[in-house]
């Protein structure tokens, strides 16, 4: 297969749901061998456009043509036949959990009958290995996908999409659950595809992805393309037109905090990692950052009673403290906004109202009977406080956008006085304006509690934190004040190989606590 220069032309795509026009008139051209980054806040129409291109929805008007020939894309099957392959944001749609990696990779071949009825395992692995090689997927092929990390599942889903040799590859927020190192592998794979002549539409919130990959940028706002940028790319201009208002750097004053509330003493995150001490004060927002599985998540999860620290003790308001379960943590005033809210936080059958009140039903109940009027009133207070955009509080959560769902999940923990608020990846799948609102709220309410947020994305950490603590391979390797931050050092600490000499890195002058090696 030589390098073809396919050209995919999208012209005049319109789509409405009822009276709500989601896409007004989208026209775009993508050529083989280029990456078009598509940026847009949540609700801008990105996912609708993706669903139309992948045949999930049908457009109300407009056409899609490949190399000048109009393609009719009414079903996902037709999209695939036209060479348009999409890797959706929700990873679990792209993989079959109970099958092995090898079986997943060649699932399309298995399903369309290219394999005989009795599948020879050796042959299967041989073909799967070929597919795996295309994106440098380096995992034992007979592992079940269910046992993989989110990141690896994502890579399997992408590899699977690539196995059909697409003309146009659409990647919808592919790095949202990847660590930076894993993202680098993905970038390599994307670049490899591009060099092979595939046209790529890359949808992302992450500027770092876009800076690395984009050849062109299209900004989408309220169902219209509001900006099309060619090289040399004006990134700030793209963000500007996507948001419709200027994004100044969110700068806040450093809060030094008041009383010590959470004190770690010689805490070890894993067997063999270095014990650390840490003193967290009320009124301060502390962001923990590091690559995926760097240990940031273990810190908050262990505080919340989901795991135990390998060793060491934690003091809460001066007394030794440990939560045996989330239930106990909550009783002691330690609350946690979970990552991956769809799996870990949202009760899908419950209304917005009932989702909000779930942890603190006791405070609206008498002899276990719920006082619904009080529940309604209190819930309204907190969801208004977190600026949830809703029309009917008794509607299901699925009626809300991702950003608003997350605001509900934050609102939940604002119902009662809080001593420690833990947040694990609070901005996952949250649009920028909601993210700003949540960040602002966290800062405004931070006064009487300790706030610890895990943000793998450094930009998010910078946006909300007074203090940024870096973990790397279960070791605390850096501690920075937001007003004295030295980015090169911070990045080095995040990205350093695990056996690097941390004492050298951590001797930066921003150090607040000692790190016990």
């Amino acid at each position, binding site marked *: 297969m030589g390098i073809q220069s396919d050209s995919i032309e999208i012209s005049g795509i319109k789509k409405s749901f009822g009276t709500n026009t989601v896409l007004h008139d989208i026209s775009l051209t993508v050529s083989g061998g280029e990456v078009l980054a598509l940026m847009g806040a949540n609700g801008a129409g990105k996912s609708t456009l993706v669903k139309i291109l992948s045949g999930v929805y049908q457009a109300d008007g407009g056409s899609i043509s490949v190399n000048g020939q109009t393609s009719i894309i009414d079903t996902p099957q037709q999209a695939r036949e036209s060479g348009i392959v999409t890797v959706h944001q929700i990873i679990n749609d792209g993989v079959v959990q109970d099958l092995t990696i090898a079986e997943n990779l060649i699932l399309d071949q298995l399903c369309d009958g290219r394999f005989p009825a009795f599948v020879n395992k050796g042959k299967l692995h041989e073909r799967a290995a070929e597919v795996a090689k295309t994106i440098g997927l380096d995992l034992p092929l007979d592992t079940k996908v269910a046992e993989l990390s989110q990141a690896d599942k994502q890579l399997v889903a992408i590899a699977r999409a690539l196995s059909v040799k697409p003309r146009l590859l659409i990647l919808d927020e592919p790095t949202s659950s990847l660590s930076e190192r894993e993202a680098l592998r993905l970038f390599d794979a994307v670049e490899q595809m591009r060099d092979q002549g595939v046209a790529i539409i890359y949808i992302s919130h992450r500027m770092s992805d876009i800076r690395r990959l984009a050849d062109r940028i299209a900004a989408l706002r309220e169902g219209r393309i509001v900006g099309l940028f060619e090289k040399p790319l004006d990134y700030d201009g793209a963000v500007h037109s996507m948001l419709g208002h200027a994004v100044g750097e969110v700068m806040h004053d450093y809060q030094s905090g008041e009383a010590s509330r959470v004190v770690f003493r010689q805490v070890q995150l894993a067997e063999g990692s270095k014990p650390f001490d840490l003193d967290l004060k009320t009124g301060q927002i502390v962001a923990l950052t590091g690559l995926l599985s760097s240990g940031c998540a273990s810190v908050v999860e262990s505080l919340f009673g989901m795991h135990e620290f390998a060793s060491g003790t934690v003091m809460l308001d001066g007394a030794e403290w440990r939560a045996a379960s989330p239930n106990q943590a909550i009783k002691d005033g330690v609350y946690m906004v979970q990552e991956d809210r769809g799996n870990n936080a949202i009760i*899908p059958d419950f209304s917005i109202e009932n989702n909000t009140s779930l942890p603190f039903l006791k405070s609206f109940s008498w002899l*276990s009977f719920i006082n619904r009027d009080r529940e309604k009133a209190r819930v309204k207070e907190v969801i208004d406080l977190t600026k949830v955009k809703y029309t009917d509080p008794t509607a299901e959560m699925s009626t809300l956008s991702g950003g608003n769902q997350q605001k509900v999940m934050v609102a939940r923990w604002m119902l009662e006085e809080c001593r420690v608020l833990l947040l694990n990846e609070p901005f996952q799948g949250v649009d920028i304006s909601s993210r700003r609102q949540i960040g602002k709220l966290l800062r405004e309410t931070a006064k009487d509690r300790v706030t610890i947020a895990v943000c793998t994305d450094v930009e998010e950490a910078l946006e909300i934190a007074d203090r940024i603590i870096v973990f790397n391979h279960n070791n605390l390797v850096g501690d920075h004040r937001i007003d004295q931050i030295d980015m090169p050092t911070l990045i080095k600490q995040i990205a350093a190989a695990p056996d690097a000499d941390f004492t050298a890195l951590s001797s930066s002058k921003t150090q607040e606590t000692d790190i016990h090696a």
Partner: protein
Amino acid sequence: MTNFRDHAIKYGLLVLLATMIVFFSIAQPAFLSMINVFIILQSVSIVAILALGVTATLAVNGFDLSIGSTAAFSMMMASYVMIVFDGGTTAAILTALGVGVLVGLVNGFMTVQMRVPDLLATLGMMFLLLGLQLIPTQGRSIAAGMSLSGGETAPGKFTEAFLFLGRARLFDIIPVPVVIMLVLAVITYLFLERTRHGRVMYAIGSNERAAHLAGARVKFYRYVAYVMSGVYASIGGILLAARIGRGDVSSGNSLLMDGVAAALIGFAVLGAARPNAQGSAIGALLVGVLLNGLTMMNTPYYTQDFIKGLVLVAALMFTFGLSKKRG
């Protein structure tokens, strides 16, 4: 026409119930007589009680297949205490209820501690109890004056007080089992819909992990659900023993299917699309009305199971097919 669809989902089953009642009472005027109304209610009371119990396990996303055999085993144990040990009313009832609690705890242990999937654990329990109920009497039914394995005659009999539970009528008209069923239905409704414990059980059923991370004591509530289910089944067993006045080895046979069917039909009542107490009771009533009406119109008895199956399948399609939750 989404409005029509919403209404169809919400009221479809109730409209069907009303239509059946109107139809049967036109075709057979005796259908709506006070006596027949209570015959219907009495015939569904035990099934409805079992359905209410299974509703609790369905609420936490469990499933109790052992309800039928728990009822049967409770019936046998109550009869055994009364006939063989001459133990009296209270001892018989407490023994039966104890069976329900114990079965619930073991089901809870299997599903929570041993992580056996609910369907398999309770299927196993069902077999175990079906077998166990035969052992004390070497497979025979229990009746007053039966001869024991040693050759002597069993000393006890069913007490009046015990039989009262199954046979008496309040104000000479409302059968006691119906009263018990209604009381349990109201209690279960209030518990599941109005208390925070019920709310938490539904949360667990919808997303167990999220509920756990919001502070729900998931294991505790799963035990509660299975114990409720076990106790309700044993109440059903007591009423059955009291109604037929003997410990009959085969009389619990259809209870499981009928109870589960009623609870599942209940999903479709008022568009709840989830297990709910009022739905389960109405589901049981619907089946009862249909069977009673058809019987009055001389439909052969052997078509009964087929008809129940038909109602169940239709109700399930209502719930899942028309529901807006599925795209």
